[in-house]
Protein backbone atom coordinates (compact mmCIF):
# COMPACT_ATOMS: atom_id res chain seq x y z
CA UNK A 1 0.00 0.00 0.00
CA UNK A 2 1.43 3.33 -1.00
CA UNK A 3 1.91 6.05 1.58
CA UNK A 4 -0.76 8.72 1.50
CA UNK A 5 0.50 11.81 -0.34
CA UNK A 6 -0.41 15.28 0.95
CA UNK A 7 -3.14 16.91 -1.10
CA UNK A 8 -1.50 19.85 -2.87
CA UNK A 9 -4.89 21.42 -3.49
CA UNK A 10 -5.94 21.28 0.15
CA UNK A 11 -6.59 24.73 1.60
CA UNK A 12 -3.82 25.93 3.86
CA UNK A 13 -4.82 25.69 7.49
CA UNK A 14 -4.49 29.03 9.20
CA UNK A 15 -4.54 29.34 12.94
CA UNK A 16 -6.84 32.23 13.79
CA UNK A 17 -6.94 31.53 17.52
CA UNK A 18 -5.88 34.55 19.50
CA UNK A 19 -4.83 32.91 22.75
CA UNK A 20 -1.38 31.40 22.71
CA UNK A 21 -1.55 28.81 25.46
CA UNK A 22 1.54 26.81 24.71
CA UNK A 23 4.86 26.27 26.37
CA UNK A 24 6.59 28.87 24.24
CA UNK A 25 4.01 31.44 25.25
CA UNK A 26 4.51 30.60 28.91
CA UNK A 27 8.20 31.19 28.52
CA UNK A 28 7.41 34.47 26.84
CA UNK A 29 5.28 35.49 29.81
CA UNK A 30 8.23 35.08 32.13
CA UNK A 31 10.73 36.79 29.87
CA UNK A 32 11.25 40.53 30.11
CA UNK A 33 10.50 42.60 27.07
CA UNK A 34 13.59 44.73 26.51
CA UNK A 35 11.76 47.64 24.89
CA UNK A 36 9.42 47.79 27.90
CA UNK A 37 12.34 47.78 30.34
CA UNK A 38 14.00 50.56 28.32
CA UNK A 39 10.88 52.72 28.76
CA UNK A 40 11.13 52.34 32.55
CA UNK A 41 14.84 53.10 32.46
CA UNK A 42 14.10 56.26 30.47
CA UNK A 43 11.43 57.21 33.03
CA UNK A 44 13.90 56.73 35.90
CA UNK A 45 16.38 59.07 34.21
CA UNK A 46 13.86 61.90 34.15
CA UNK A 47 12.58 61.39 37.71
CA UNK A 48 14.31 63.03 40.70
CA UNK A 49 12.77 60.74 43.31
CA UNK A 50 14.62 57.44 43.53
CA UNK A 51 12.06 54.89 44.64
CA UNK A 52 14.56 52.03 44.85
CA UNK A 53 16.85 53.99 47.17
CA UNK A 54 13.91 54.97 49.36
CA UNK A 55 12.82 51.35 49.60
CA UNK A 56 16.29 50.46 50.87
CA UNK A 57 16.29 53.19 53.48
CA UNK A 58 12.63 53.02 54.51
CA UNK A 59 11.39 49.50 53.75
CA UNK A 60 8.07 50.03 55.58
CA UNK A 61 7.16 53.23 53.77
CA UNK A 62 4.41 52.89 51.19
CA UNK A 63 5.86 53.33 47.65
CA UNK A 64 5.01 56.66 46.10
CA UNK A 65 2.83 56.40 43.03
CA UNK A 66 2.94 59.26 40.54
CA UNK A 67 -0.11 60.45 38.59
CA UNK A 68 1.99 60.02 35.47
CA UNK A 69 2.70 56.30 35.04
CA UNK A 70 6.40 55.58 34.51
CA UNK A 71 5.73 54.01 31.13
CA UNK A 72 4.09 57.23 29.88
CA UNK A 73 6.58 59.70 31.38
CA UNK A 74 8.98 60.01 28.41
CA UNK A 75 6.21 60.62 25.87
CA UNK A 76 4.37 63.02 28.21
CA UNK A 77 7.60 64.98 28.71
CA UNK A 78 7.92 65.38 24.93
CA UNK A 79 4.28 66.42 24.79
CA UNK A 80 4.87 69.08 27.50
CA UNK A 81 7.95 70.45 25.78
CA UNK A 82 7.20 70.13 22.05
CA UNK A 83 3.42 70.12 22.15
CA UNK A 84 3.63 66.85 20.21
CA UNK A 85 4.78 63.34 21.03
CA UNK A 86 7.44 62.91 18.32
CA UNK A 87 10.23 65.31 17.32
CA UNK A 88 11.27 66.08 13.75
CA UNK A 89 14.87 64.90 13.67
CA UNK A 90 17.33 65.37 10.80
CA UNK A 91 16.56 61.82 9.69
CA UNK A 92 12.82 62.55 9.63
CA UNK A 93 13.37 65.83 7.76
CA UNK A 94 15.40 63.95 5.15
CA UNK A 95 12.67 61.35 4.77
CA UNK A 96 10.05 64.07 4.41
CA UNK A 97 12.07 65.71 1.65
CA UNK A 98 12.40 62.35 -0.11
CA UNK A 99 8.60 62.09 0.00
CA UNK A 100 8.31 65.52 -1.69
CA UNK A 101 7.19 67.22 1.52
CA UNK A 102 8.43 70.29 3.35
CA UNK A 103 11.22 69.09 5.69
CA UNK A 104 9.40 70.67 8.63
CA UNK A 105 5.65 69.99 8.96
CA UNK A 106 3.30 72.95 9.56
CA UNK A 107 2.62 71.71 13.08
CA UNK A 108 3.79 73.21 16.39
CA UNK A 109 7.26 71.93 15.38
CA UNK A 110 7.30 74.91 13.02
CA UNK A 111 5.16 77.17 15.23
CA UNK A 112 6.67 76.99 18.72
CA UNK A 113 4.35 79.82 19.89
CA UNK A 114 1.47 77.33 20.03
CA UNK A 115 3.58 74.88 22.04
CA UNK A 116 4.38 77.74 24.44
CA UNK A 117 0.65 78.50 24.81
CA UNK A 118 0.04 74.83 25.52
CA UNK A 119 2.78 74.82 28.18
CA UNK A 120 1.16 77.83 29.85
CA UNK A 121 -2.26 76.20 29.69
CA UNK A 122 -0.80 73.08 31.28
CA UNK A 123 0.55 75.23 34.12
CA UNK A 124 -2.74 77.14 34.49
CA UNK A 125 -4.64 73.85 34.67
CA UNK A 126 -2.34 72.62 37.42
CA UNK A 127 -1.20 69.60 35.40
CA UNK A 128 2.45 70.29 36.25
CA UNK A 129 1.60 69.89 39.93
CA UNK A 130 -0.51 66.78 39.37
CA UNK A 131 2.25 64.98 37.51
CA UNK A 132 5.02 66.80 39.46
CA UNK A 133 6.81 67.88 36.29
CA UNK A 134 9.36 70.65 36.92
CA UNK A 135 9.49 72.74 33.75
CA UNK A 136 12.72 74.49 34.79
CA UNK A 137 14.68 71.33 35.59
CA UNK A 138 12.81 69.34 32.90
CA UNK A 139 12.35 66.37 35.21
CA UNK A 140 9.54 64.82 37.23
CA UNK A 141 9.91 65.26 41.00
CA UNK A 142 8.13 61.92 41.48
Amino acid at each position, binding site marked *: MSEKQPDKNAK*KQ*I*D*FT*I*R*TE*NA*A*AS*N*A*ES*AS*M*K*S*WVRLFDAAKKITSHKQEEEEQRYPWRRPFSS*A*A*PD*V*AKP*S*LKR*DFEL*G*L*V*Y*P*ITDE*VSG*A*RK*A*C*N*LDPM*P*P*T*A*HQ*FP*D*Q*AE*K*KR*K*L*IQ*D*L*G*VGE*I*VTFDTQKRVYDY
Partner: protein
Amino acid sequence: MITEGYGNMTTNVSTGKSSEKYGYFLGCVMPAKMPWAEKSTMIVAKHLGLDFDYMKETLCCVRPGPWKTIDPDAWLTLTGQNLALAERQNVTLVDTCNGCWQTHYEVAEELREEPEKMEMVQRYLDKYGLKYSGKGKVRHFLQVLYEDVGIDTIKSKVTRPLNIKVMRHVGCHARKLGNDVMPRYFDEILKATGAEIIDTPLDLMCCGLLVFFADPKISIYRNVFKKFKVAQDLGVDAIVLICSGCYDQFERGVKILNDEGDPTGQLKDFDIPMVHLSELLALSFGYKPEDFGMDVFRTTSTSNLIAKVMEGK
Protein backbone atom coordinates in the same frame (compact mmCIF):
# COMPACT_ATOMS: atom_id res chain seq x y z
CA MET B 1 -26.21 65.78 -0.03
CA ILE B 2 -28.71 62.90 0.30
CA THR B 3 -29.39 61.24 3.64
CA GLU B 4 -29.76 57.47 3.65
CA GLY B 5 -30.48 55.05 6.47
CA TYR B 6 -28.40 51.94 7.13
CA GLY B 7 -29.96 49.90 9.90
CA ASN B 8 -30.27 52.22 12.83
CA MET B 9 -27.51 54.49 11.55
CA THR B 10 -27.90 57.47 9.30
CA THR B 11 -25.17 58.38 6.86
CA ASN B 12 -24.74 61.07 4.29
CA VAL B 13 -24.16 59.92 0.76
CA SER B 14 -22.47 62.36 -1.55
CA THR B 15 -23.81 63.84 -4.69
CA GLY B 16 -20.17 64.20 -5.74
CA LYS B 17 -19.72 67.91 -5.00
CA SER B 18 -18.17 69.54 -1.98
CA SER B 19 -17.46 73.23 -1.45
CA GLU B 20 -16.00 72.84 2.01
CA LYS B 21 -12.59 74.10 3.02
CA TYR B 22 -10.71 71.32 4.76
CA GLY B 23 -7.78 71.60 7.18
CA TYR B 24 -5.67 68.45 7.46
CA PHE B 25 -4.79 67.77 11.09
CA LEU B 26 -1.51 65.83 11.05
CA GLY B 27 -1.21 64.80 14.69
CA CYS B 28 2.04 63.39 16.12
CA VAL B 29 2.75 60.18 14.20
CA MET B 30 1.91 61.15 10.61
CA PRO B 31 4.56 63.88 10.07
CA ALA B 32 7.28 62.05 12.00
CA LYS B 33 6.81 58.43 10.90
CA MET B 34 4.52 58.28 7.87
CA PRO B 35 5.59 60.98 5.39
CA TRP B 36 4.53 58.75 2.47
CA ALA B 37 1.01 58.63 3.93
CA GLU B 38 0.93 62.38 4.50
CA LYS B 39 2.01 63.08 0.91
CA SER B 40 -0.33 60.53 -0.66
CA THR B 41 -3.28 61.91 1.35
CA MET B 42 -2.53 65.39 0.01
CA ILE B 43 -2.24 64.00 -3.54
CA VAL B 44 -5.51 62.08 -3.30
CA ALA B 45 -7.44 65.02 -1.82
CA LYS B 46 -6.22 67.38 -4.55
CA HIS B 47 -6.85 64.80 -7.29
CA LEU B 48 -10.44 64.50 -6.09
CA GLY B 49 -10.86 68.25 -6.39
CA LEU B 50 -11.17 69.02 -2.68
CA ASP B 51 -10.25 72.41 -1.20
CA PHE B 52 -7.81 70.60 1.07
CA ASP B 53 -4.74 72.03 2.77
CA TYR B 54 -2.83 71.63 6.01
CA MET B 55 -4.31 72.87 9.21
CA LYS B 56 -1.41 74.84 10.68
CA GLU B 57 0.13 75.28 14.15
CA THR B 58 -1.41 72.01 15.35
CA LEU B 59 -0.41 70.16 18.51
CA CYS B 60 -0.97 66.64 19.83
CA CYS B 61 -4.73 65.91 19.54
CA VAL B 62 -4.43 65.40 22.79
CA ARG B 63 -4.28 61.69 23.57
CA PRO B 64 -7.25 60.69 25.73
CA GLY B 65 -5.43 57.73 27.30
CA PRO B 66 -2.98 59.54 29.59
CA TRP B 67 -4.61 62.97 29.55
CA LYS B 68 -8.13 61.96 30.58
CA THR B 69 -6.57 59.92 33.37
CA ILE B 70 -4.48 62.84 34.59
CA ASP B 71 -7.24 65.45 34.39
CA PRO B 72 -10.37 65.36 32.17
CA ASP B 73 -10.62 69.18 32.23
CA ALA B 74 -7.06 69.43 30.89
CA TRP B 75 -7.99 66.98 28.12
CA LEU B 76 -10.99 69.14 27.16
CA THR B 77 -9.02 72.40 27.30
CA LEU B 78 -5.93 71.25 25.41
CA THR B 79 -8.07 69.60 22.73
CA GLY B 80 -10.04 72.86 22.68
CA GLN B 81 -6.82 74.61 21.69
CA ASN B 82 -6.72 72.59 18.43
CA LEU B 83 -10.45 73.08 17.83
CA ALA B 84 -10.00 76.85 18.34
CA LEU B 85 -7.16 76.86 15.79
CA ALA B 86 -9.44 75.16 13.24
CA GLU B 87 -12.11 77.80 13.82
CA ARG B 88 -9.56 80.61 13.49
CA GLN B 89 -8.27 79.12 10.22
CA ASN B 90 -11.89 78.73 9.07
CA VAL B 91 -11.51 75.07 8.13
CA THR B 92 -13.30 71.82 8.77
CA LEU B 93 -10.80 69.82 10.81
CA VAL B 94 -9.97 66.54 9.04
CA ASP B 95 -8.26 63.62 10.78
CA THR B 96 -6.83 60.51 9.18
CA CYS B 97 -5.85 59.07 12.58
CA ASN B 98 -8.78 57.37 14.31
CA GLY B 99 -7.45 58.36 17.74
CA CYS B 100 -7.16 62.04 16.83
CA TRP B 101 -10.61 61.96 15.25
CA GLN B 102 -12.18 60.37 18.32
CA THR B 103 -10.58 62.97 20.59
CA HIS B 104 -11.73 65.90 18.47
CA TYR B 105 -15.19 64.41 17.92
CA GLU B 106 -15.79 63.57 21.59
CA VAL B 107 -14.50 66.88 22.95
CA ALA B 108 -16.53 68.89 20.41
CA GLU B 109 -19.64 66.89 21.37
CA GLU B 110 -19.02 67.18 25.10
CA LEU B 111 -18.44 70.92 24.94
CA ARG B 112 -21.62 71.40 22.90
CA GLU B 113 -23.65 69.38 25.39
CA GLU B 114 -22.14 70.84 28.56
CA PRO B 115 -22.21 74.65 28.63
CA GLU B 116 -20.31 74.77 31.93
CA LYS B 117 -17.40 72.84 30.43
CA MET B 118 -17.50 75.02 27.33
CA GLU B 119 -17.36 78.12 29.52
CA MET B 120 -14.37 76.72 31.42
CA VAL B 121 -12.49 75.90 28.19
CA GLN B 122 -13.27 79.32 26.72
CA ARG B 123 -12.00 81.00 29.88
CA TYR B 124 -8.65 79.22 29.70
CA LEU B 125 -8.23 79.73 25.93
CA ASP B 126 -9.27 83.39 26.06
CA LYS B 127 -6.21 84.18 28.19
CA TYR B 128 -4.01 83.23 25.21
CA GLY B 129 -6.06 84.91 22.49
CA LEU B 130 -7.84 81.74 21.37
CA LYS B 131 -11.60 81.46 20.82
CA TYR B 132 -13.70 78.35 20.46
CA SER B 133 -17.43 78.74 19.78
CA GLY B 134 -18.28 75.09 19.09
CA LYS B 135 -19.38 75.80 15.52
CA GLY B 136 -16.35 74.24 13.81
CA LYS B 137 -16.75 70.82 12.22
CA VAL B 138 -14.67 67.69 12.76
CA ARG B 139 -14.49 64.99 10.07
CA HIS B 140 -12.63 61.78 9.50
CA PHE B 141 -10.91 61.53 6.11
CA LEU B 142 -13.05 58.46 5.38
CA GLN B 143 -16.16 60.60 5.85
CA VAL B 144 -14.75 63.24 3.52
CA LEU B 145 -13.96 60.64 0.86
CA TYR B 146 -17.20 58.70 1.09
CA GLU B 147 -19.78 61.28 2.12
CA ASP B 148 -18.42 64.42 0.48
CA VAL B 149 -16.63 63.08 -2.59
CA GLY B 150 -18.62 59.89 -3.10
CA ILE B 151 -17.68 56.36 -4.04
CA ASP B 152 -18.77 56.75 -7.67
CA THR B 153 -16.46 59.72 -8.15
CA ILE B 154 -13.60 57.78 -6.55
CA LYS B 155 -14.26 54.79 -8.83
CA SER B 156 -14.33 57.06 -11.86
CA LYS B 157 -10.79 58.27 -11.06
CA VAL B 158 -9.26 54.79 -10.96
CA THR B 159 -7.06 54.33 -14.02
CA ARG B 160 -4.76 51.61 -12.66
CA PRO B 161 -6.79 48.93 -10.84
CA LEU B 162 -4.53 47.24 -8.30
CA ASN B 163 -4.24 43.51 -8.71
CA ILE B 164 -3.25 42.80 -5.11
CA LYS B 165 -4.55 40.85 -2.11
CA VAL B 166 -4.67 42.71 1.18
CA MET B 167 -5.61 42.29 4.82
CA ARG B 168 -7.42 45.28 6.27
CA HIS B 169 -6.99 46.92 9.66
CA VAL B 170 -9.60 49.64 10.11
CA GLY B 171 -8.92 50.23 13.81
CA CYS B 172 -11.19 50.33 16.85
CA HIS B 173 -12.01 54.03 17.09
CA ALA B 174 -13.24 54.09 13.49
CA ARG B 175 -16.11 51.93 14.77
CA LYS B 176 -17.44 54.61 17.09
CA LEU B 177 -20.34 55.46 14.75
CA GLY B 178 -21.03 51.77 14.01
CA ASN B 179 -19.67 49.21 11.56
CA ASP B 180 -21.95 50.50 8.83
CA VAL B 181 -20.24 53.85 8.71
CA MET B 182 -16.45 54.18 8.59
CA PRO B 183 -15.50 50.48 8.43
CA ARG B 184 -17.86 50.13 5.44
CA TYR B 185 -16.47 53.29 3.84
CA PHE B 186 -12.96 51.89 4.30
CA ASP B 187 -13.89 48.61 2.61
CA GLU B 188 -15.72 50.18 -0.29
CA ILE B 189 -12.97 52.69 -0.97
CA LEU B 190 -10.32 50.00 -0.71
CA LYS B 191 -12.24 47.76 -3.12
CA ALA B 192 -12.57 50.69 -5.52
CA THR B 193 -8.78 50.62 -5.96
CA GLY B 194 -9.11 47.07 -7.30
CA ALA B 195 -7.52 45.48 -4.25
CA GLU B 196 -9.00 42.19 -3.06
CA ILE B 197 -9.72 42.19 0.68
CA ILE B 198 -9.11 38.87 2.41
CA ASP B 199 -11.51 38.61 5.36
CA THR B 200 -10.13 37.21 8.60
CA PRO B 201 -11.64 36.69 12.06
CA LEU B 202 -8.92 39.03 13.39
CA ASP B 203 -10.06 42.04 11.37
CA LEU B 204 -11.89 43.46 14.38
CA MET B 205 -9.03 42.85 16.80
CA CYS B 206 -7.41 45.94 18.33
CA CYS B 207 -3.83 46.83 17.32
CA GLY B 208 -3.03 46.78 21.05
CA LEU B 209 -1.63 50.32 21.26
CA LEU B 210 -3.27 51.30 24.54
CA VAL B 211 -2.80 47.84 26.01
CA PHE B 212 0.95 48.26 25.57
CA PHE B 213 1.10 50.67 28.48
CA ALA B 214 -0.59 48.16 30.78
CA ASP B 215 0.60 44.80 29.47
CA PRO B 216 3.19 44.92 26.67
CA LYS B 217 3.25 41.15 26.21
CA ILE B 218 -0.46 40.86 25.46
CA SER B 219 -0.22 43.98 23.33
CA ILE B 220 2.64 42.74 21.17
CA TYR B 221 2.55 38.94 21.24
CA ARG B 222 -1.21 38.39 21.22
CA ASN B 223 -2.34 41.36 19.15
CA VAL B 224 0.39 42.52 16.77
CA PHE B 225 2.28 39.26 16.21
CA LYS B 226 -0.94 37.29 15.81
CA LYS B 227 -2.15 39.68 13.13
CA PHE B 228 1.23 39.57 11.40
CA LYS B 229 1.26 35.77 11.48
CA VAL B 230 -2.20 35.52 9.92
CA ALA B 231 -1.23 38.05 7.22
CA GLN B 232 1.87 35.97 6.52
CA ASP B 233 -0.05 32.68 6.40
CA LEU B 234 -2.60 34.19 4.04
CA GLY B 235 0.18 35.44 1.78
CA VAL B 236 -1.29 38.93 1.42
CA ASP B 237 0.62 41.64 -0.43
CA ALA B 238 -0.01 44.27 2.24
CA ILE B 239 -1.82 45.18 5.43
CA VAL B 240 -3.88 48.30 4.75
CA LEU B 241 -4.69 50.82 7.47
CA ILE B 242 -5.66 54.43 7.90
CA CYS B 243 -4.96 55.13 11.58
CA SER B 244 -1.57 56.60 12.53
CA GLY B 245 -1.90 55.26 16.07
CA CYS B 246 -2.34 51.70 14.76
CA TYR B 247 0.66 52.19 12.45
CA ASP B 248 2.76 53.40 15.39
CA GLN B 249 1.88 50.22 17.25
CA PHE B 250 2.59 47.93 14.27
CA GLU B 251 5.92 49.69 13.76
CA ARG B 252 6.73 49.04 17.41
CA GLY B 253 5.83 45.39 16.85
CA VAL B 254 8.23 45.09 13.90
CA LYS B 255 11.04 46.74 15.86
CA ILE B 256 10.50 44.40 18.81
CA LEU B 257 10.43 41.41 16.47
CA ASN B 258 13.68 42.51 14.80
CA ASP B 259 15.46 43.41 18.06
CA GLU B 260 14.19 40.72 20.40
CA GLY B 261 12.60 38.02 18.25
CA ASP B 262 9.34 36.32 19.14
CA PRO B 263 9.54 34.20 22.31
CA THR B 264 6.05 32.80 21.60
CA GLY B 265 7.51 31.13 18.52
CA GLN B 266 4.63 32.09 16.24
CA LEU B 267 6.50 34.56 14.06
CA LYS B 268 9.97 34.50 12.55
CA ASP B 269 10.59 36.83 9.65
CA PHE B 270 8.01 39.39 8.78
CA ASP B 271 8.21 41.41 5.60
CA ILE B 272 4.65 42.33 4.69
CA PRO B 273 4.35 46.07 4.08
CA MET B 274 1.92 48.13 6.11
CA VAL B 275 0.44 50.71 3.79
CA HIS B 276 -1.95 53.61 4.14
CA LEU B 277 -5.25 53.60 2.25
CA SER B 278 -4.23 56.89 0.60
CA GLU B 279 -1.15 55.24 -0.93
CA LEU B 280 -3.28 52.63 -2.69
CA LEU B 281 -5.72 55.30 -3.83
CA ALA B 282 -2.87 57.37 -5.26
CA LEU B 283 -1.47 54.34 -7.11
CA SER B 284 -4.88 53.43 -8.48
CA PHE B 285 -5.32 57.02 -9.70
CA GLY B 286 -2.17 56.52 -11.79
CA TYR B 287 0.42 58.22 -9.56
CA LYS B 288 3.89 56.73 -9.38
CA PRO B 289 5.29 55.37 -6.09
CA GLU B 290 8.06 57.99 -6.18
CA ASP B 291 5.47 60.79 -6.27
CA PHE B 292 4.90 60.21 -2.56
CA GLY B 293 8.06 58.32 -1.54
CA MET B 294 6.43 54.95 -1.22
CA ASP B 295 9.75 53.17 -0.70
CA VAL B 296 11.17 55.72 1.75
CA PHE B 297 11.41 55.38 5.54
CA ARG B 298 9.45 52.13 5.71
CA THR B 299 9.25 49.71 8.59
CA THR B 300 8.92 46.80 6.15
CA SER B 301 9.94 46.98 2.53
CA THR B 302 7.39 47.95 -0.10
CA SER B 303 9.59 46.77 -3.02
CA ASN B 304 7.62 43.61 -3.85
CA LEU B 305 4.31 45.42 -3.58
CA ILE B 306 5.51 48.25 -5.83
CA ALA B 307 6.87 45.76 -8.39
CA LYS B 308 3.56 43.88 -8.44
CA VAL B 309 1.49 47.04 -8.81
CA MET B 310 3.71 48.49 -11.54
CA GLU B 311 3.83 45.21 -13.47
CA GLY B 312 0.05 45.15 -13.26
CA LYS B 313 -0.06 41.36 -13.20
